[in-house]
């Protein structure tokens, strides 16, 4: 990326950095996508999030994107990203931010948990750029899904056409379901009591 030394250029960089921080990006993403110094980014991060950024390395495995639920979320993000980048001429990081916002819009609409963080989404784009991951189309639904680049994908069937039996049954989900069932049961009892009183 070109070093910008103008005040306006710096203002743009700060705008970009703060947007990424608001979306929950890790410091490494900011360092790679903006020309601001580490000290300034750290200060900006603390100002916005009111806490120090998490330490440690970024998740670096491509395997995570292959497990059932992450694969679906990653594929949705990647489809949105690719349609943004092919339909208009925008910067890569701009497309990542917009695609991520659209992805979150879907999650709100479908009442699903946020599986893919902005940092993971950014890594995904980097993995695809580096040729480690790519998308292939499912032979049943023709949708595009994230896969390893050198995998045999002639007869690829996606995780949604061919759902594994325990798909989506995470600890978090089943806890929520139990809670929901308990609430419904309690409501039922109240209704019966009310009926008895009447």
């Amino acid at each position: 990326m070109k070093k910008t030394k103008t005040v306006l250029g710096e203002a743009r960089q700060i705008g970009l950095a703060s947007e990424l921080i608001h979306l929950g990006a890790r410091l490494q993403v900011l360092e790679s996508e903006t020309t601001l110094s580490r000290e300034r980014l750290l200060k900006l991060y603390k100002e916005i999030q009111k806490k120090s950024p998490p330490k440690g390395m970024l998740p670096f495995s491509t395997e995570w994107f292959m497990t059932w639920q992450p694969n679906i979320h990653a594929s949705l993000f990647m489809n949105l990203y690719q349609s943004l980048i092919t339909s208009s001429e925008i910067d890569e990081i701009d497309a990542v931010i917009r695609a991520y916002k659209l992805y979150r819009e879907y999650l709100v609409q479908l009442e699903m948990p946020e599986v893919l963080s902005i940092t993971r989404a950014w890594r995904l784009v980097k993995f695809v750029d580096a040729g480690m991951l790519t998308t292939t189309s499912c032979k049943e639904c023709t949708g595009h899904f994230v896969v390893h680049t050198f995998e045999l994908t002639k007869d690829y069937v996606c995780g949604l056409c061919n759902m594994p039996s325990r798909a989506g049954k995470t600890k978090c989900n089943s806890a929520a379901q139990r809670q929901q069932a308990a609430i419904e049961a309690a409501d039922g009892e109240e209704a019966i009591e009310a009926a008895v009183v009447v």
Partner: protein
Amino acid sequence: MNIQNLHNEIREANLSYLILAQNMIRADRAEALVRLGLSEDVAGIIEQLTAGQLLKIAGSNMLMCRFRFDDSVVWNLLLSHTKDQSSAQGMHAAILMAGKSVEVA
């Protein structure tokens, strides 16, 4: 529906579609292109249309918008409402729809 009513309905649908499209393009071009499934060229033309031109185009006998997803798979996914799978099917439909706009562009 008689022919005059039909023309009126088409004109209204056209007008609200064109106005919505124009507002979306003016607000955020890149996002609007994805949501509308338009090409950059057509988006540029719609963005520049005056109110008079909008009315004139809307008044034709043809609908200016059409179904984007010419695929029964997407429709079936959007229609199904089994309770525990509706979010997975919603995701599936979303992936297919987002992917379709790549192919068109």
